[in-house]
């Protein structure tokens, strides 16, 4: 239960600064009177033995100050990246015609810090990516899209993916409905249409994504689940998608997905 309660509202004791470490990023929080001091810096992941620390290292932090008369509590809110992810499996593989495979992969999240203002409205003060992802281009130079690149392992079982709460487990089902072998080396995953769900222990899940490949010259159907995935029980919804998928956006996604196998 190391990370239980990480996404819930937390009380803050005045003038007792705290640092939260997310991999090699650290977020420092302090409250002095009406001022919130929020610092973002780096930390050595090797030295990370606990998520929380009661000290603040001012040398590698950049502090921003916010003033509010709201109550002394804050909430950490995870979200998925603001652009699509181009997934490159560490071990590219092929899916035979007629096959349907379900994989699990972990997606890096962004962390937002919210506090309540005087009228108890939740205001997000800061949002930062836990992992600095490289940028990449998906599609042709005219109609393509700027994405983040992510090299990752695709797993057939999700249980080994519970390591840290700032990576979300994403179930991905690919059906090869074409008469050809599908070489899976790059896949554009539109994470802006995915919600986040948390387990009681603080680990994150996204909706299920289903892709039907109908051939390199055919549009491929991508559907995003609208509810929590069935693989884990007791998931609670904690973040809505950045963009709501509708018919037109799904249509647009087909176009992007169309050329992924021969890009």
């Amino acid at each position, binding site marked *: 239960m190391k990370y239980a309660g990480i996404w819930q509202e937390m009380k803050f004791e005045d003038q007792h600064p705290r640092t939260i470490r997310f991999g090699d990023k650290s977020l420092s929080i302090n409250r002095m009177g009406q001022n919130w001091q929020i610092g973002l810096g780096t930390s050595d992941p090797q030295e990370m033995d606990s998520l929380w620390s009661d000290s603040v290292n001012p040398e590698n932090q950049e502090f921003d100050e916010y003033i509010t008369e709201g109550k002394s509590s804050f909430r950490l809110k995870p979200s998925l990246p603001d652009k699509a992810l181009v997934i490159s499996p560490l071990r590219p593989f092929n899916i035979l015609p007629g096959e349907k495979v379900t994989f699990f992969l972990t997606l890096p999240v962004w962390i937002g810090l919210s506090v309540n203002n005087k009228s108890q409205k939740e205001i997000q003060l800061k949002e930062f990516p836990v992992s*600095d992802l490289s940028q990449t281009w998906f599609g042709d130079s005219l109609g393509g899209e700027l994405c983040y690149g992510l090299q990752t392992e695709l797993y057939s079982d999700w249980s080994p993916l519970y390591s840290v709460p700032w990576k979300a487990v994403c179930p991905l089902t690919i059906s090869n409905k074409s008469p050809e072998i599908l070489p899976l080396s790059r896949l554009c995953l539109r994470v802006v249409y995915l919600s986040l769900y948390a387990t009681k222990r603080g680990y994150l899940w996204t909706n299920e994504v289903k892709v039907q490949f109908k051939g390199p010259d055919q549009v491929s159907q991508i559907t995003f689940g609208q509810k929590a995935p069935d693989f884990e029980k007791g998931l609670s919804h904690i973040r809505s998608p950045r963009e709501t998928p509708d018919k037109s956006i799904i249509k647009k996604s087909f176009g992007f997905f169309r050329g992924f196998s021969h890009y």
Partner: protein
Amino acid sequence: MNYFQDIISLSDLFEKIDVNILIRLCVYGVLSFVILKLFHLLIKKMIRSSVSLQTMMLIQKSFKYAWGIIFILIILREFQIDFTAILGAAGIVGVAFGVASRNSLGNLISGLFLIGEKPFEIGDVISIEDKKGVVHSIDTLSIKLRTFDNLYVRIPNEKIINTDVINITRFPIRRMDLDISVTYAEDLEKVMSVLKDITLQNRFCLNEPEALILLKGFYASSIDVLLGVWFEKSNFIQLKNSLVLDVKKRFDAEGIEFAFPHVSVYTGTHTAPFPLTLEKELKN
């Protein structure tokens, strides 16, 4: 001259002006102003998301000029000025005006071509001869650029039609080329591998399309390498600065030597070192 005397004489005009006409003109003026403002607001609200800034500006200007003409006609009617006589005079004035404004007409027609061809839009960064800047407006006679050192540059449309125009920001991604010269002693495979690694580590370089690393050839003092990295068009300055810094740091760390122009002087027919003889020992 008789034409103008027929059309209007100042004494007639003053006789026709009374308080009622003045009030009506004021009301028309205020109404025109309000209608123009309302129209601009409506355009902004209703079609801003569906049309480009340039089209919006074109619609607004067309409406403004059309409304101006209507307003002038209303004034003429209020003063009971003979409109057919004005049209007659307009023929003569038009010829004179046309002769006097040949260049302007050329610019006007070029402007229409530019609007139809759309080589650039408002907000694009373009380069014309030695001028480079953001397109501020595209008007009937000229385009206006805002240069990066914040100068306002007017370029006649006719000149743009007859000159090479480079639209720098037309496509969402661009390639930045960096020429790097290394000495002949360097291991070129290692140089290429280090450059590849630099592009993968730099967060402003796109992973795809892949960076171009090209050994350009043997030059007088160096072997030149072209490093072409793709980037999102808004990251030009960040990429340029970070890439040069990264290359310098990594080459220093890896012991790769940058080449610079130099001349080696040899004696004799072979490339033996230049013979130097120490004739006198220097004392401290």
